Structures are given as structure tokens and as C-alpha cells.
């Protein structure tokens, strides 16, 4: 046994683990450490449960301390076994499973419990709180089952829950007892703006609504308000507030009021017992936010390692980051004697700013719509700085108020104090970022990996980059280790896609606004990518932006080097008819095709067609029953087949028939890049299925499915995915794989580099092993297809977007002939 004193931490959450991290940072050999947690998992970022619910993050994304962290630091983690009793006399704790351990120091970090309002029906199945992973899982299950949700509580937590559930497809009603939303953080004006915006997004917000009961027979069926109003629903989320979890401390005989009483060094009434986080009460205050927790943990670690600093309480600020709605508040905004308000409203931008000043100091701020200066106001507030000199310009923000000197962003961050908060999500101060840079993190990605600043929501990325520039001077090149989408943004493809879903962004300008694009309307790389990501995320609602399509997709034909186009009608599975061939021949004659070529994908290509003639030739081909072959698109191209068992003496299955079915299922689908399918009727593989994105090789006993192949510059043979028994399964796996690729590959990645990046095992896990997931992917694909399978040629032939094909006018010798005005 070790001679080191034994520190037992009760609570494997953000406070408990942060306290341990702080102690280890000061003296890694001080304690032998055991952490008990009631949840059966490692420590994760609880404030990121909202993005998890909204589908923006996975559990792995929000893990703070992985298993390796516990192992590397010699920490014993007992997860899923809560401490149920403390014997202070014997200095032991006992867990639910009966395990007893003795301690030299005990740290209580039990956090808080959700408050359940005591109404009839509160215990019905379907009443959920929003506190941990289990709650999120329950909400996700409810959302999958469909139906309506009621969220009780219009505070930070309730609104984030409502937002997540709405994004998961539920119709959401928020019931709030008070007249305005988030009344503890927002004033009336900002609360109203917030309510209006949420209602615009389809949520029902009932304020001054008092819950009478939750009703239902054996499970939740609805909520009845005290005024008799009934709101039917399948789940109720109780998010009215949290209470310090003090049961264990109280039973152990510690001094407890609203929270566990602690001194400035986080010591309870028993010197061997410490406490931090939401469970404590310090100088009369309890906190339900993350920032004070970091400060408490620092003070605790300082005193435990012989260098006591003391915690003096926190001034808190709040940022709501749901739905791309920016809300910030800090300090006191209730007004009163001697308080003066400075207010700025900009209705067209949807901005409301209010700074409350007393005795020439900022004492509070409420910002809606533009929260960029939130940290600055918060810093002024905490520092109690005299603002008399900048009062006139205060409301316009830091850059303006500092008279231009600070409009240089580097100067602006240089002016921040070391303990100014940079990253609210992860509680990282300017000093910590600078220390992290001094410790060798010389680019944004290293900073994100080391101290986590800007790694969560990313809204402080610019600040972090300015700090890097400030610290490194000319040595900072701004280069990234991860690849951003293009030069217009600091975000990766994955970041942007996640934000589109999480923030509900529906249009390219909206994405550029929300993610702070550095160019006014993007570039020729990001615009087509954004257009694709939007259409993939919102199949039913997406509005095409033809000007963000590469020419071939805008014109639905392939541009050639002389500016004419080539036209390829679809031939299902490579099968044609004499009638189709006659129509193609006639069209070739009529529109002067200078070459007719058989393509590698088993169809015919007509070359040399003029832009103006495209709608007419498409009309002619439509009349013979043919549609666009999408030979020009980042889309399903062809399904190549051999003749299979119908004709071939070696054929084992009807490969032609399966190919036609596959093409009928997948045509019209837009993809990150071109996508080719082939079906071979036997292992001789005449259709070359092993260099396609999705290939099927028929064998006597079924269908071998292959993925991730392509010809081209970097020839790549397919990987074998799995074998299935029936034609229907082959089609279902094809749909699921296609959708996985559509949803997760970066724009302009073909399946080959994508599969190499994520690994074959990952694809197998999603498509082969996860039956439920596969079915869901397949269904999402077919749902998207119900909107995409519209022949673009028919639309153009009937006159849609004719301006793309007609000249605006024509200049003849000495005259101009106008197009239709």
C-alpha cells in the first residue's frame, strides 16, 4: 500500500475531476486518489448535453477525462456505484454496492439534483429531467417514437432542452411560470425578443402558465394547467431548476443550509471533508453555473498543496447558445437607486444591448443578438473599472469605445487582463491560453487540444487566434493542423455540418452569418459545399441556389472546352431500346451533335450541344421517355451491369434486374462527389464492380457487397463489406451506405478517401452490425429521395430558369436586339 494520504472524491463530474486535475497540476504525488461516481461512465462535459441532445455532438466529443486519464494518473475510478453513507468518526465511506473505503481527505462534489415540482402525475413514466446522459437517452428515445413534448421551465436548461427536442422533430411547448423567459438572466425586452424568435421557429411558449398536473393512464398523456388548459404530449421535461445535492452531507452531520457550507478554502465544518461545485454554499451564495466551479477548484487545490489563495465568490455571466440565438447577461440588471441604463436597439439586425452603470462602473449587461462584447463588459464589471472616460461610446462596444486604438484586435486582446475569461464553455482564461501557448501550443488546434479554449462551440476562436498572434508575434502564421473548409472560414467541414444541424441553418447566407465567414459571399469552393450540406441536412425544405452550383450542375450538362455541352440521357442499368436509340439519333441530327460516344458507364453521350439548345433537346429526349443521366453531377451517375443469369451461361443472379432497381432507387441523389454503382452477375466481374463506390458481385448463395472503389488517378479496389442473401437486402444496404456517405463525407471526397479516413471497421459497424442504425439510414435516404427524384431536364424543358439558357440581348452590326425584358 502507498504511504500517501488517500483522497476520496464523491462525484465523478465536472467539479470533482477538475479539482483532481488542479491538485495533480500542483503536486502529482500528494494523494492516492479514488473517485466514486453514480453514473457508469467517465467524466463528461455536462454543459454539452444540450448539443448532444441536439445531435451536434456525440458522447465521445463531450468526454473531458478519458479512461486513459484515470489510468495515467493512477486514479481509481469506481463508476456506477454511488456513495450512500459517510462515517466521519471512522473516516470511511460506503457505496451502494456495500464497498467501504477509508479516507484521509474526503471531497464532496455531488453537484445538484433537478427540482421536480410536486404536482400530481410527476412520477408517471415519461416525466424526465435534464441532468445526465440517461435523461438525454430517454429524450432521444421519445423523439424517435415521435409525438409532442412539454418542457416545464423557460430558463436556460429548459430552453436548451426544448431546442434539442424541436430539432429532433418533436412539437414542443414550453410552460413558464414567470411573465418572461430566463427572467433571472434577461430583462423584459431581451426575454421578449427571445420568445418571439423561438415562436418564429415553431415552438409554443406559454408564459405565466402554472402547471396543475401531469395526466395519463400509466404513462404521460399530457399536462393540465391550473387554468384548465390541456396540452397533450408523450413526454414532459421538468427543467424548472436545480437544488444542491446535500443529502449525503446532511446525513453525515455536516453543516448544511441551502448547500453544504464551506469556507474560502472549500473546507466544510469537518476539516477532513472538502466540498466544491454546485453542492456548496459559500458566503451565502450557491451557484448553478460552470465558471465559479473552476475558481473554487483552484482555491481548493491551492490550499491542499500548501499554498492557500482563497475563494472570494464569483460574479457570473450567462450565455445561451441555442438555435443560433446569441444571448448574454451578467451582473445586476434589476435597476434601482442610482442606476443608469444605456440602451442600444437595432431592429434590422435584431440587436438589443443594455449596459447598467452605477457610480461610473458597469454593474450589469444584457445583450441580445450581438454578444461579441459580452466578455469585455463582463471584464469591466468584475474589475469594477471606472468607465467615465469611455461612457459615451460604451454601448457601441470595445473597439469603438477605445477610440480606435483597440480596433486592432491584437491590441484589444492585449488589453484584457490575465483572468479575463476567453472560453466560457471550458472556463479558460486569457492567462491560461497564454500559458498554454508558452508551453508549446503554437497553433489553434494545439490550443484546443491542450487547454480546450474554443474547442466546444468555437465562438471564441477569433479571440484565441488573436492571443496566439499576440504571444507568438511573427512566428504565428495562422496555419492549422486540421484542414478548414476553405479560406473563408476557421471551421472544418465537420464543424460546419454540425452547426447547420444544431443551429437549424437553412440558407447559405445564414450559415455565413452564424459562422462568421470572412468573405461577403464565400468562394467557388465553399458555396457548392454549403449548398450540398444544406440540401443533405434539410431534404424537405432546401431551396436550391443555382448560383452556388458548379456550371455542370447548374446547366445539367457537361461543359466542354469550347463552351458547348454534352448531353447523356439515363439508360437504366445500361439497357436501352430501339425507340430510345431512334430518339437519340434524331436529337443528334436535329441539334448538330458533332460526336456521339458510348461512355464507360454504358450509355450514350451527345457532344457539341449549345447552351441555348439544351432545353429543347431535353424536351425531345423526355418525349421519348428518357430523363437526365446526371453525368455532370456530384450525384449518382450510372449503375453498370452485365447481362447476368438471364442470358449468360455463368450468371448466378439477375444482375441486370438488380442494377436497374438500384438505379431506380438511387437516381437523382446529390452526393459529396460522383457516385458509381455496378452489379456483376458472377465473380468474373464483367461490370467491374470492384472499382465502384458501391459494387455487387452475385454468387450462387447471394450477393457480395463491396464499397469504396474508384478508377481515376488513384485507382482503388473496393473493400469487401459483407454478404447478403436477398436482392432486397442488397438494395437496403446500398441505400444505407449511400446515406452514410452523404451525411458524413466531406464535400468532394469520393467514397474511397472517405472510407480510408474513417476506416472500413467504422463503416461495417454502422452498416453491417447496427441493424437499427442501418434501417434508419436507409429510411433517411429514401425520404431524401422522395424530394430529389425530379427530372431536372423536364423542369428546364418546361421553361424553368430559362434565363440560364437565353442571352440577355444580342448585338448585331450596328444594332442591339434585346431579350425579353
Amino acid at each position, binding site marked *: 500500500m502507498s504511504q500517501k494520504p488517500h483522497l476520496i472524491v464523491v462525484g465523478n463530474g465536472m467539479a470533482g475531476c477538475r479539482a483532481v486535475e488542479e491538485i495533480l497540476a500542483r503536486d502529482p504525488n500528494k494523494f492516492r486518489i479514488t473517485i466514486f461516481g453514480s453514473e457508469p461512465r467517465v467524466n463528461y462535459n455536462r454543459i454539452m448535453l444540450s448539443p448532444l441532445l441536439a445531435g451536434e455532438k456525440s458522447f465521445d466529443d463531450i468526454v473531458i477525462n478519458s479512461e486513459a486519464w484515470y489510468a495515467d494518473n493512477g486514479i481509481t475510478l469506481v463508476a456506477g456505484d454511488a456513495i450512500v453513507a459517510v462515517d466521519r468518526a471512522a473516516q470511511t465511506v460506503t457505496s451502494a454496492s456495500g464497498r467501504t473505503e477509508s479516507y484521509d481527505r474526503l471531497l464532496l462534489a455531488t453537484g445538484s439534483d433537478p427540482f421536480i415540482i410536486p404536482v400530481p402525475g410527476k412520477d408517471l413514466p415519461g416525466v424526465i429531467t435534464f441532468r445526465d446522459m440517461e435523461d438525454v437517452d430517454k429524450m432521444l428515445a421519445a423523439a424517435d417514437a415521435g409525438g409532442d413534448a412539454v418542457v416545464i421551465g423557460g430558463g436556460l436548461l429548459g430552453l436548451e432542452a426544448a431546442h434539442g427536442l424541436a430539432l429532433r422533430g418533436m412539437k414542443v411547448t414550453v410552460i413558464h411560470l414567470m411573465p418572461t423567459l430566463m427572467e433571472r438572466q434577461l430583462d423584459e425586452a431581451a426575454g421578449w425578443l427571445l420568445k418571439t424568435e423561438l415562436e418564429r421557429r415553431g415552438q409554443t411558449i406559454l408564459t405565466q402558465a402554472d402547471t396543475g398536473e401531469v395526466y395519463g393512464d400509466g404513462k404521460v398523456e399530457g399536462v393540465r394547467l391550473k387554468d384548465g388548459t390541456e396540452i397533450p404530449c408523450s413526454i414532459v421535461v421538468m427543467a424548472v431548476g436545480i437544488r444542491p445535492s446535500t443529502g449525503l452531507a446532511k446525513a453525515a452531520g455536516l453543516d448544511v443550509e441551502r448547500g453544504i457550507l464551506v469556507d474560502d478554502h472549500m473546507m466544510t465544518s469537518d476539516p477532513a471533508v472538502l466540498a466544491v461545485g454546485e453542492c456548496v454554499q459559500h458566503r451565502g451564495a450557491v451557484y448553478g453555473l460552470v465558471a465559479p466551479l473552476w475558481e473554487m477548484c483552484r482555491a481548493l487545490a491551492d490550499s491542499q498543496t500548501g499554498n492557500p489563495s482563497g475563494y472570494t465568490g464569483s460574479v457570473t455571466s450567462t450565455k445561451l447558445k441555442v438555435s443560433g440565438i446569441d444571448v448574454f447577461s451578467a451582473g445586476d440588471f434589476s435597476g434601482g437607486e442610482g442606476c443608469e441604463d444605456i440602451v442600444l436597439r437595432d431592429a434590422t439586425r435584431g440587436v438589443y444591448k443594455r449596459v447598467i452603470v452605477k457610480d461610473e462602473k458597469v454593474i450589469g449587461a444584457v445583450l441580445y443578438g450581438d454578444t461579441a462584447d459580452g466578455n469585455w463588459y463582463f471584464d469591466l464589471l468584475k474589475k469594477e473599472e471606472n468607465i467615465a472616460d469611455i461612457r459615451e461610446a460604451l454601448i457601441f462596444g470595445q473597439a469603438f469605445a477605445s477610440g480606435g486604438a483597440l480596433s486592432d484586435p491584437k491590441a484589444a486582446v492585449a488589453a484584457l487582463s490575465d483572468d479575463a475569461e476567453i472560453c466560457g464553455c471550458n472556463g479558460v482564461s486569457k492567462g491560461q491560453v497564454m500559458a498554454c501557448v508558452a508551453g508549446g501550443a503554437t497553433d489553434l488546434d494545439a490550443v484546443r487540444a491542450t487547454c480546450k479554449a474554443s474547442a466546444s462551440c468555437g465562438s471564441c476562436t477569433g479571440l484565441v487566434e488573436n492571443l496566439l498572434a499576440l504571444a507568438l508575434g511573427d512566428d504565428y502564421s495562422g496555419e492549422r493542423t486540421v484542414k478548414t473548409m476553405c479560406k473563408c472560414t476557421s471551421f472544418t467541414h465537420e464543424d460546419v455540418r454540425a452547426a447547420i444541424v444544431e443551429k437549424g441553418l437553412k440558407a447559405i447566407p445564414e450559415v455565413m452569418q452564424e459562422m462568421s465567414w470572412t*468573405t*461577403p*459571399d*464565400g*468562394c*467557388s469552393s465553399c*458555396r*457548392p459545399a454549403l449548398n450540398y450540406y444544406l440540401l443533405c441536412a434539410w431534404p424537405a425544405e432546401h431551396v436550391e441556389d*443555382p*448560383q*452556388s452550383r*458548379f*456550371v*455542370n450542375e*447548374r*446547366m445539367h450538362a457537361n*461543359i466542354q*472546352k469550347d*463552351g458547348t455541352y454534352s448531353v447523356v440521357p439515363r439508360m437504366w442499368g445500361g439497357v436501352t431500346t430501339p425507340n430510345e436509340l431512334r430518339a437519340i439519333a434524331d436529337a443528334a441530327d436535329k441539334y448538330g451533335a458533332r460526336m456521339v460516344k458510348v461512355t464507360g458507364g454504358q450509355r450514350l453521350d451527345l457532344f457539341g450541344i449549345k*447552351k441555348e439548345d439544351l432545353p429543347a433537346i431535353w424536351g425531345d429526349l423526355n418525349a421519348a421517355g428518357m430523363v437526365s443521366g446526371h453525368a455532370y453531377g456530384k450525384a449518382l451517375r450510372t449503375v453498370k451491369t452485365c447481362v447476368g443469369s438471364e442470358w449468360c451461361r455463368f450468371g448466378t443472379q439477375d444482375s441486370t434486374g438488380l442494377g436497374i432497381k438500384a438505379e431506380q432507387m438511387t437516381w437523382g441523389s446529390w452526393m459529396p462527389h460522383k457516385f458509381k454503382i455496378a452489379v456483376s452477375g458472377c465473380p468474373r466481374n464483367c461490370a467491374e464492380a470492384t472499382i465502384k463506390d458501391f459494387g455487387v458481385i452475385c454468387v450462387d448463395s447471394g450477393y457480395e457487397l463491396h464499397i469504396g472503389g474508384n478508377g481515376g488517378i488513384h485507382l482503388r479496389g473496393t473493400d469487401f463489406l459483407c454478404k447478403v442473401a436477398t436482392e432486397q437486402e442488397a438494395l437496403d444496404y446500398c441505400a444505407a451506405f449511400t446515406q452514410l456517405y452523404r451525411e458524413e463525407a466531406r464535400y468532394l471526397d469520393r467514397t474511397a478517401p472517405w472510407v480510408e479516413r474513417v476506416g472500413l471497421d467504422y463503416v461495417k459497424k454502422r452498416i453491417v452490425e447496427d441493424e437499427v442504425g442501418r434501417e434508419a439510414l436507409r429510411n433517411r435516404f429514401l425520404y431524401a429521395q422522395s424530394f430529389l427524384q425530379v427530372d431536372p431536364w423536364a423542369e428546364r424543358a418546361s421553361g424553368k430558369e430559362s*434565363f*440560364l439558357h*437565353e*442571352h*440577355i*440581348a*444580342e*448585338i*448585331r*452590326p*450596328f*444594332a*442591339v*436586339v*434585346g*431579350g*425579353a*425584358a
Partner: protein
Amino acid sequence: MTALSALRIADHDTHTHLDTHMIADWLDIGTVDQLPALGARTLPVRGGKEIAIFRTANGDVYALVNQCPHKQGPLSQGIVHDTTVTCPLHNWRISLIDGHALGEDEGCVPTIPVKIDGGRILIGRKEALQGMA
């Protein structure tokens, strides 16, 4: 503005052909709203070089000869962003303002002066007819 009536050298309803070189330095080719935002349309010049008319996000209109200085790609079919068009053939970026290739590439395409009057697009006659045989 007084010359405006004389500038209407084409009657857009009747397609009357009018003699141009007698009367105007500017050719009226249509209205701004005939151009898609962030897009372009073409203006063939019989016996001369086709012109591309561009419209940016904030509604400014520019005219270039519709040929990339690189391999004569039709610039009108490129993606317009800010005051730039990216050629659809090989992604050269061409400034709409002065016709110069941007970035590493070198080359220049002739520009045609444009002015907007009452929502109508007027382009410089002399430059538009340049290159005519």
C-alpha cells in the same frame, strides 16, 4: 441624363434594329433584374466577341469579354463571389473590376464599361464592338 432617350437604341418590345454608331456612346442591353444575383448572362456580338454581364451580391453590374485569358473558358458560367468570377474550366479567378487574373495566375480579359440608369444596363459601345472584323 438628357441623352437617355437617344441611348435607347434597341426597342425591346418590337426588336427593331436601329443604327447605333450614329447616335450613342452607350448601348442599352436590358434591365438589371434580368440578371440573377451572383450570376451572369451572355451578350453575343455578331462578328465580334461574346460579352458576359455579371451581377454581384450587392447589385453591382460588370461586363467582361466572355473568354478566360487562360483557355478561353466561358466566364459567364463561372461562380461569382464578391467582385470575382471563377472560370468554370480550370478555376482561374478573374477580377470583374479590371479583368485581371488573381492569385498566382497571370492574364487579363478586356472589360467593357457599364453604367446603370433607372434600372437599365448601359455598356460602352466602343468597347463592346471592339474586335469586330
